[in-house]
C-alpha cells in the first residue's frame, strides 16, 4: 500500500493535530479550564491515524476513555472537540458528554467510552449493520491492554468470529492499565496470542511506526471489507503522559516517558523516514506544523470564549421526544 504525497501529508497533519491538541489540552486542564477527567493520547498517534486512514465516514470506530486521538483521526472537528472538552455550547455533544464521552456519529465515531471495553461490542453492532445491510463497510473497535481482560471484550472476539463480522480489533497495548503493567495483567504473553483462541488471525505491530500500523491495518481492513471476517491487531506503543491528567506516574521507570519521547516519537520517526526517502520536504512538514498549531490555538480561543450550555439542556434529549 504505497501512499501518495497527499496521503502522507494528511497522515502527518492528523498525527500532528492529535499531538498539538493533546498538549494544549494538557495545559488548559492544568490551568483549570477543562472540567472532569482527561486521558491524553499523545505518543500513540501512529495507531489512530495508521488505522483510520483506511476508513471512510461510513465506517465505524469504537473508542475508549483515551479517545481524542481516535476522534481526530476519524475526522472529527477540532473546534467541536475543544468546545466539548470545555463543556461549552456547540461542542460535539453540546457539552453534555465531555472528554470521556465525546462522539460524532456522522463521522462514524461511536463515542469515547468511560466503561473500559464497552465500545467493543458496540462496534460489533456497527459491523453487524454493515453486514446485514450489505454496506461493504467495516468497524474498528479500539481497546487498551487493560481492556483486553474485560469479559465483554473477550466475548466479542468470539462473537465476531461466529458471526464472521467485518471487524478489526485494534488493541492498543501501551504497556499499562492505569498503573498496572500489561505484562502482569495479560496472561498468556501478548494480546495477539488471543487471536487464534477465538478463531481469527492476529498481527502484532510496532505502534510507533506509522507505516507498520498502516500496512497491517490496511490488510486487515481490506480482508474484513471483502467478507473475510475479523482480525486481531495488537499495536504496541506507549503514552507520553500519565494515565489521566494528575497521575504521578511513580510506577514507571525513571526517565521512561522521556525515553519514549526521545526515541519512540512517531512524529519524529515519520518525519525522518519521509524526508530521508524524499517523499516529503521538511518545508511541507513545517508548514503542516504551523497550520495545525493555528487550528488548535483558534479552537482553544473559541472554546474559552464560548457559553456553557443553556439551563434548558438539562432536560432535553433524554428520549427522542424530550
Amino acid at each position: 500500500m504505497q501512499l501518495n504525497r497527499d496521503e502522507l501529508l494528511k497522515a502527518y497533519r492528523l498525527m500532528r493535530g492529535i499531538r498539538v491538541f493533546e498538549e494544549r489540552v494538557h495545559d488548559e486542564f492544568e490551568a483549570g479550564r477543562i472540567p472532569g477527567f482527561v486521558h491524553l493520547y499523545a505518543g500513540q498517534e501512529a495507531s489512530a491515524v495508521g488505522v483510520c486512514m483506511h476508513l471512510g465516514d461510513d465506517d465505524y470506530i469504537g473508542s475508549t476513555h483515551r479517545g481524542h486521538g481516535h476522534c481526530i483521526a476519524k475526522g472529527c472537528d477540532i473546534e467541536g472537540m475543544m468546545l466539548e472538552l470545555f463543556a461549552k455550547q456547540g461542542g460535539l455533544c453540546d457539552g453534555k458528554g465531555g472528554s470521556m464521552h465525546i462522539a460524532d456519529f456522522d463521522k462514524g465515531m461511536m463515542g469515547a467510552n468511560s466503561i473500559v471495553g464497552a465500545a467493543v461490542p458496540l462496534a460489533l453492532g456497527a459491523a453487524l449493520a454493515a453486514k446485514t445491510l450489505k454496506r461493504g463497510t467495516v468497524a474498528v473497535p479500539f481497546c487498551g491492554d487493560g481492556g483486553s481482560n474485560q469479559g465483554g471484550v473477550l466475548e466479542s472476539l468470539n462473537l465476531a468470529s461466529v458471526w464472521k463480522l467485518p471487524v478489526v480489533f485494534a488493541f492498543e497495548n501501551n504497556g499499562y492499565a492505569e498503573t498496572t503493567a500489561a505484562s502482569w495483567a495479560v496472561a498468556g504473553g501478548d494480546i495477539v496470542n488471543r487471536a487464534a483462541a477465538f478463531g481469527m488471525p492476529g498481527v502484532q505491530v510496532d505502534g510507533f511506526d506509522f507505516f507498520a500500523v498502516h500496512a497491517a491495518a490496511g490488510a486487515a481492513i481490506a480482508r474484513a471489507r471483502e467478507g473475510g471476517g475479523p482480525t486481531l491487531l495488537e499495536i504496541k506503543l506507549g503514552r507520553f503522559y500519565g494515565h489521566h491528567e494528575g497521575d504521578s506516574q511513580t510506577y514507571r521507570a525513571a526517565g521512561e516517558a522521556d525515553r519514549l519521547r526521545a526515541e519512540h516519537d512517531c512524529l519524529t520517526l515519520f518525519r525522518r523516514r519521509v524526508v530521508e526517502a524524499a517523499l516529503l520536504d521538511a518545508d511541507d512538514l513545517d508548514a503542516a506544523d504551523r497550520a495545525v498549531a493555528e487550528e488548535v490555538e483558534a479552537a482553544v480561543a473559541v472554546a474559552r470564549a464560548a457559553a456553557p450550555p443553556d439551563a434548558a439542556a438539562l432536560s432535553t434529549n433524554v428520549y427522542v421526544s424530550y
Partner: protein
Amino acid sequence: MARIITMRNALSEAFRQVMEEDPTVIMMGEDIAGGQGAPGEADAWGGDLGITKGLLGRFGPDRVLDTPISETAYIGAAVGAATAGLRPIAELMFVDFMGVCFDPLLNQAAKFRYMFGGKTRTPLVVRTQYGAGVGAGAQHSQSLYSLFAHIPGLKCVIPSTAYDAKGLMIASVRDDDPVVFFEHKAMYDTVRDDVPERAYAVPLGEANVVTEGDDVTIVAVGRMVHFAHEAVRKCAAEGIGCELIDPRTISPLDEDTILESVERTGRLVVVDEGYPRCGFAADIAALAAEKCFHALKAPILKVTPPHTPIPFAPNLEELWLPSPARIAEAVRRVME
C-alpha cells in the same frame, strides 16, 4: 368478530409483522432459532419456549441470529447496531441474566442520546421473560423491571393481555428509544384475548383502565393485573367499586390516569410482583403521596412479595407471590 389468541401467538404475530414492514428489524438471542451447527433440524426450538419459532424460515439467517452464550457481546452489539441503522430485537432469555449484561443498557443505550447531545438514536428492543410461579427458583423467577425503570433513558414495557402484548411490541420496535420489554413466563399460554390481525400499535406511556370504580384505585402490571382483577371481582360482590389501572409501560409512566383516579377514589392499593424495596409499588405510592395527598382518605397500601429471594418449593413460592386474596384484603383495609 373476536379472534381469541394467546399472548404467545400475539407476540409471534407482532414479530412477523414488524419484520415484514421494516427490513432493518432483526432479531438475536440464544437459540431463538436453534440448532446452529447441529446435525438435526434448524429452527429446532424457536427460543426456549418456542415464541420465535418460524421466523428463521421466513426471514433467513441474516435477520434471525442465534448467538453464543455471550450476553454482553450480543446485547452490546444490538445497541451498537441500533445506532448504525438497524432496529434490533434482542432476547435476554430471562431477565435474571441482566447481571451478566447490564452495562450495554445502563451505561450505553440509556445514556447515548443525552450524553451525545441528541445526536443519535438507539431504536432497540430487549425482550425478556420475568416472573415467578413455575418453580424456577431464585435465579430464574425475578421481576426486575424496577431496576430498569430506575434508569433514565430506558423505556420499560410490561403487557398484561395478548392485545397489549402485540400492540406494545409493535410500538416498541417502531420507537426510536431503547425499550426493555417484559413477558411473564406464566402468561404465554394462559392469557388469551381478542387480538386484531392487522399490525397496530398501543402507544407507550398510556395506561389502560381495566375496570372503573369509585371507591379504591388499584395499580398493577403484568400478571398482577389478572390477580388484581380477581380481587376486584371479589370486592365488587362485597359492594366495593375498584378502579383497576394497568400502566402497561412503567417508564414512561402515565401519571395522569393514576392521579385522576386517586383524586376521585381517595384510596390506593399498588400490587407488584417485584421486590418491595425501592421498587415499582413504592414508586406509585410515592407519586400519589406527593401529587394527590389532599384527596387521600386512607394509607396507601402495597401488596408485594416479602423482601426475600424467591423460594424453590412451590408451597413457599405461592406464599411469596401476591395473591388475589391478599389484594382483596388490602382493598378492604383501605375501605375501613
